[in-house]
């Protein structure tokens, strides 16, 4: 292979199709960030494949000038697993929403995570069904009043990050549509991870669930309500970074940074599954007194688990080494034959 430098721009990744999300939709930002990150990955664009299911977010592949498939509701993960298993040379991305991945596609979603194929999954979480015009989703808060739940939804919501950690995902992160820089950094890290990278993106649906995440994005509340995790750094938040998290045994406690010495604060360690699990449970309703801030960034990375596509294809190679390349005539004849004259 020649090592010609590929100079691509975000424009090279824009297809000629008109983008048809509602004006003001958070999806626009995600599309833009992906188109910004991809040219810098040093990879020819024909190697990128975007697979989506059904839902607003799943229109995404049509707007990318890469290979793409807009498939069936909930099944993008299964299709992508089949593609990556057979074509490990490709960079395969899954675009999915909260309904697509956790309702109808819940089964494939958890099994993809446990198998760990080298896929990049962008989970657009807007806590609502947009394409079907506004029913509650598996991540909608309990009591959500929608067209299908006029008296409020009685369902308890999923906690996507906790679900992914429970399914033994090897890369779990959360970012926001309104924070382009953070989003780009997290998407890039997801791409670099070998194994399934799961990036949950809080995405505003300005038509059916406007402002669902505004406490995490608006100036007045953002610093109080978000906990930006960085590996090796203490977990601090607040308008002046005046608050921090301390672990009292397995119990997280909010402290004033001024009241504790620096080494008493919880230092974020992405490789610690137990701590990631505790962080994933920072999922309180922001209106509740004494709630924890919502963490963003990388919760957990496990670099020690082989990918599904590796293991899957290693067996093929191992079989060839052990038994030699298959000989069809030998196979057709089987072990016992007889001759009729």
């Amino acid at each position, binding site marked *: 292979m020649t090592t010609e430098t590929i100079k691509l721009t975000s424009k090279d990744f824009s297809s000629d199709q008109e983008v048809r999300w509602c004006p003001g939709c958070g999806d626009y930002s995600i599309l833009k960030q992906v188109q910004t990150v991809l040219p810098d990955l040093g990879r020819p664009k024909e190697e990128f494949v975007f697979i989506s299911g059904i839902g607003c977010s799943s229109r995404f592949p049509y707007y990318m000038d890469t290979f793409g498939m807009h498939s069936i509701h909930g099944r993008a993960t299964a299709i992508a*697993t089949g593609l990556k298993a057979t074509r490990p040379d490709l960079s395969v991305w899954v675009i999915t929403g909260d309904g697509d991945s956790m309702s109808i596609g819940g089964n494939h979603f958890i099994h993809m995570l446990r198998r760990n194929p080298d896929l990049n999954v962008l989970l657009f979480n807007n806590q609502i069904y947009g394409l079907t015009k506004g029913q509650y989703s598996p991540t909608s808060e309990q009591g959500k009043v929608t067209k299908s739940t006029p008296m409020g939804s009685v369902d308890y919501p999923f906690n996507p990050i906790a679900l992914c950690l429970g399914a033994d995902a090897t890369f779990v992160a959360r970012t926001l549509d309104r924070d382009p820089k953070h989003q780009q950094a997290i998407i890039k890290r997801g791409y670099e991870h070998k194994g399934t990278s799961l990036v949950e993106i809080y995405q505003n649906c300005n038509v059916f669930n406007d402002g669902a995440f505004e406490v995490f994005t608006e100036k007045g509340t953002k610093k109080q309500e978000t906990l930006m995790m960085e590996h090796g750094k203490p977990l601090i938040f607040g308008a002046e970074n005046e608050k921090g998290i301390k672990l009292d045994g397995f119990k997280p406690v909010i402290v004033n940074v001024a009241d504790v010495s620096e080494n008493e604060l919880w230092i974020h360690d992405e490789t610690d599954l137990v701590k990631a699990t505790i962080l994933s449970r920072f999922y309180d309703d922001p209106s509740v007194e004494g709630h924890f801030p919502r963490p963003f960034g990388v919760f957990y990375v496990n670099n020690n688990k082989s990918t599904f596509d590796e293991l899957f294809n290693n067996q093929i190679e191992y079989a060839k080494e052990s038994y030699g390349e298959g000989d069809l005539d030998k196979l057709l004849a089987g072990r016992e034959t007889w001759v009729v004259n």
Partner: protein
Amino acid sequence: MSTVETTLESVVIRFAGDSGDGMQLTGTQFTNAAALFGNDLATFPDFPAEIRAPIGTIAGVSGYQIHFGSTRIHTPGDQSDVLVAMNVAALKSNIKGLKKGGVIIANTDGFDAKNLRLANVPEDQNPLKDGSLAGYDVKEIDVTKITRAALADSGLGTKEIDRCKNMFVLGLLYWMYHRPIENTIEFISSKFKKNQAIADANIKVLQAGWSYGETTEMFAQRYNVAPAKMEAGIYRSIMGNQATALGLIAASVKSTLPLFYGTYPITPASDVLHELSKYKNYNIKTFQAEDVIAGICSAIGAAFGGHLAITGSSGPGIALKTEAIGLATMLELPLVVVNVQRAGPSTGLPTKTEQADLLQSYYGRNGECPVVIVAAQSPADCFNMAYEACRIALDHMIPVFFLSDGYIANGAEPWRFPTSDKLQPIHVEFAGERQATDDKFMPYLRDEKLSRPWAVPGTKGLEHRIGGLEKQNITGNISYDPENHELMVKLRQEKVDLVANYIPEQTIDNGADSGDLLILGWGGTYGALKTATAQLIAEGYSVSHAHVQYLSPFPKNLGELMSKFKKVVVPELNNGQLVKIIRDKYFVDAIAYNKIQGQPFMSIEVVNKMKEILG
């Protein structure tokens, strides 16, 4: 002592016992011995869905029937000549299928008070003692006792010793029918190579069975069944699911595409997975997915990536694949869907056979979603039609249903296997690289077969998007244009119809090309219909038999072929499916003949029905 030697043209033996008695293994071993001897044969394993139903009960009876002979054999036989009954339940549930005067080899230990109770035999009765078997030739043997005696010094426990009982019966039958035991000895040695004591025990009991025939006076007759006069060539024994797997592998090798099989275990399709998973060194990649839907979806992913993509299932599993078959149709990617049909809706009768998924294959999807459908007619024919399914899928960029059924999937027959150079070539060409200066790539531009280019990811300049939304013809862009939708629906149908130009014409299997009655069959009923037709012709009736392997589209001459007969009858193991399509498509007043019992046709019932129709 002296034994009388008799030569027979053909023999039907039915092995019946408890699920744990090893009857399937006994049957397949006898099958191999008969095949290697050169007999033609057909088999019918008939087992319960439960892995271990309560011991001794009727529900737990597992049967294996083999019909072997010196003439051509097309069915496992309507009735058996010999019934091996390892217990009362086995006798009770199989005696109906034994010929009057037939031989019963009864394991007396399986007829004790406990077994009689478990088989719900009234208290004062015992078929071995109450004279109810007077019309049969009953050989009572305490197989359990003899097996235990033979292995008294083996050091094995009673449970392990009792598991060798089936080998006694097998040895005895090998003696009765002059079959060599060496192959089975070899089989046992290899199967238990890690447990020499068990291997030795099985071999010892096998030999004890042989010697029992030789020394006791109970068996005064031995039978010779000469090798069959079959077409010259090299043969092997093959089961349907095995042949299906080989057909798929052959297509993979001939097309030089690696094969991906995405599936989820289900009876009776699972053996296709088991078989394929053995051949990883042939570039065969099998994926046991988390569910049936992921099975087909992963295959669609593999098809997009340029593999020969297959999915397989049965019964309700096929229902679950419906939506994804629709997607594959829209994507116009090659995909083979293996459906090893089983009986009934929902869970139905998982281990029983039926051909009730034809209409589902034709029409069972939302919108109008035509696919190609082919069906195998016998265990060995699974190879041919699985290969054809792949060839058509790849040549025409289209999903193809390959229909098998539980009966041929588990049945075995001799197979004059082809050499690889005799297989029809399969040429696959992916769309080539394009430069920025070239015209824009059009993913739905069609060739003379109306098939679109296979543009696999990783190919420079071919970036494109496909999906389940209606496509604009040629560009492949999303299109809600009314005229375009109509065009695309018609194009997808036409694409299927055009396949008729690339498949063989329909032939008459047996009989004249015109006459009073055409028996038009499809799928696994082939053997029974062939046997029945031969008998009817021999009796002077004007009857012919044609068996359809290409069901969508039909061979181009099918209409004309049917028009030469006064009557057309369509026998099917369903409530009338092919007959509906034939009537709809050809305006032929075809007569339905149906059996819906989870069991194959017996040739005698076909013969009787045809006579009734002929008047």
